[in-house]
């Protein structure tokens, strides 16, 4: 168990012109579950691979538990990893797969057997210990990969999109299992994903990345409630945050023709207003919108509406009924409005 400190990490792949990670700095506390979230190509996997020692940075420094490991080979870093493709060894039984790292470390056979049995029980792999991975389902292989990682008692646990190859139902159930296992272990964990749902549900903190940089770092719900810029608001949450153009003049905020008192910190001029779908009420008064698509999701009814030229996603109560072509009136909850600069698209601070 150890804390991780990343300072000014720069990496450009050979032949590439853009930096895969661009001067990234990040401190991860001992025992913290850190999620790196971002679209593909944002540098999150590169960052994880540099932590693992599978890529070497051009500049910067990585310390784990106070030890400089920036250019140490992977086997000397005392970490373990769960790969996106599972990367279980097809020529070894489940038992030998799980015990692989311990055997490489020359752990006594008895201790290896105990550890393997412990992990197999935790991940419900007991009946499969003597099978080869080819005889297992995808979910079981994933469990083998996790078991192999947790027996190591490593300083740091790295996970590279471990759930992305599972089907939707399995992904949800295994997500909860994974969270419990990692909580009980208390190991410092770095988890890479492009799935905002995973990021929100698993992380102690989330680092949202874009173009090789961390654009926002914080508690998942804080990031969800107060996106630092339009990109984060649009990436986090399902459906993503809605954005509408607005203007401030004479202390009045005008959104889609409706006026209300503007918060004091907003400057006069054009800006963007962001609001989550669940904070838009449907009533008799408010912004007039045309319903284009109605999607019942069970827990809610998701409406795609059009206000002038802008598209607005609205989450209505499950009992709400509407048809495409209907007109509804939308009420934006004042507390839930977020304000962004029209030019820079950055949040306007209070």
């Amino acid at each position, binding site marked *: 168990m150890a804390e991780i400190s990343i300072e000014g990490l720069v990496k450009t792949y050979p032949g590439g012109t853009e930096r895969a990670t661009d001067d990234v700095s990040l401190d991860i506390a001992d025992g913290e579950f850190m999620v790196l979230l971002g679209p593909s190509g944002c540098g999150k996997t590169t960052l994880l691979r540099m932590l*693992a020692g*599978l890529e070497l940075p051009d500049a910067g420094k990585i310390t784990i538990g106070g030890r400089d490991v920036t250019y140490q080979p*992977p086997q000397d870093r005392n970490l373990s990893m769960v790969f996106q493709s599972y*990367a279980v*060894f097809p020529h070894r039984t489940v038992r030998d797969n799980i015990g692989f790292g311990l055997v490489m470390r020359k752990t006594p056979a008895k201790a290896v057997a105990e550890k393997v049995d412990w992990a197999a029980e935790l991940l419900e792999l007991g009946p499969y210990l003597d099978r*080869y991975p080819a005889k297992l389902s995808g979910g079981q292989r994933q469990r083998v990969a996790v078991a192999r990682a947790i027996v190591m008692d490593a300083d740091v646990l790295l996970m590279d999109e471990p759930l992305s190859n599972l089907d939707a139902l399995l992904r949800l159930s295994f997500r909860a299992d994974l969270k419990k296992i990692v909580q009980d272990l208390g190991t410092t964990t770095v988890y890479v994903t492009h799935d905002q749902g995973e990021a929100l549900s698993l992380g102690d903190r989330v680092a949202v990345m874009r173009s090789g940089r961390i654009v926002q770092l914080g508690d998942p719900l804080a990031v969800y409630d107060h996106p630092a810029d339009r990109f984060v608001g649009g990436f986090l949450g399902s459906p993503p945050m809605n954005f509408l153009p607005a203007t401030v003049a004479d202390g009045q905020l005008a959104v889609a023709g409706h006026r209300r008192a503007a918060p004091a910190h907003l400057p006069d001029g054009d800006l963007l207003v962001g609001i989550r779908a669940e904070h838009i009420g449907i009533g008799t008064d408010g912004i007039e919108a045309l319903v284009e698509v109605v999607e019942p999701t069970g827990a809610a009814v998701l409406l795609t509406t059009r206000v002038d030229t802008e598209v607005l996603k609205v989450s209505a109560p499950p009992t709400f009924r509407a048809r495409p072509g209907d007109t509804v009136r939308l009420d934006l909850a004042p507390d839930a409005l977020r304000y962004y600069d029209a030019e820079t698209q950055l949040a306007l601070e209070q």
Partner: protein
Amino acid sequence: MTDVDRTPLRRHRRNRILIQVACLAITAFVAVPLYLVTVAAFATRASLDRFPLSLLPTDLSTETIGRFLASTGILASLGNSLIVGFGALVLSTIVGVPAAYALARFAFRGKDSYQLFLLFTRALPIVVLSVPLAQLFLTAGIYDTTYAVILLHAALALPTTILITASVFVSVPVDVEEAARVFGCTPAQAFRHVVAPMALPGIAAASIFTFVLSWNEVLGASILTLNRRTLPAQVLTSLNESPLAFRFAGGFALVVPALLFIAVMRRWLTNMWGTTIR
């Protein structure tokens, strides 16, 4: 249910029967000569001269094959052939596998031309290659040794060894190798514990290729040796003047060890740990 159009089903069945027939024909193409050679090798000499020739093993005798094996140089050349075959196999594997790994894993300048160049070495006729080699080996003092033939055969086999194993290394996922690194392996250990076992089918295929090539190669072996002949070279020189029966015995002795070797290697070839490698 009388109005079902059964024509496609009939066509499907007919095609399957045709495939079976084709399989049988190809098998017969290989098996019939083998059978005839075997029968002739174990027949009495008198029965071979009889007309019409019996196609069934009626007059069995080990006299011909016994005298063939007892004749001068045959057992020794059989030993030479085995030494050269396995020597070429080991040498081409030791040299070829690292080259194949490099081709599969690393991007380097001239990679494509290197691959092409590998194949070019096979474009040279063995005769053209052997005469200067004989000269070279005479100077080096290894002319007429099994080493000389091992070197030639390993060189001939290297292109196929490299290209076959490279294609298998490509199919071993990089992730698996990286997992081995993260879980405590040095690069060499990762290769030994993870990559090499997964590439074993390809290495087996390449070794079959090498062994069979070496076992059958006669020109180079004849030029590079005088007294330490490999079996094909020996058979070629001595059987030209032998009676028909001994030629069959020679053919049998040539075919059987190669078949045995392939039969043994076959189990490593495609199916391992209950799965074919992707």
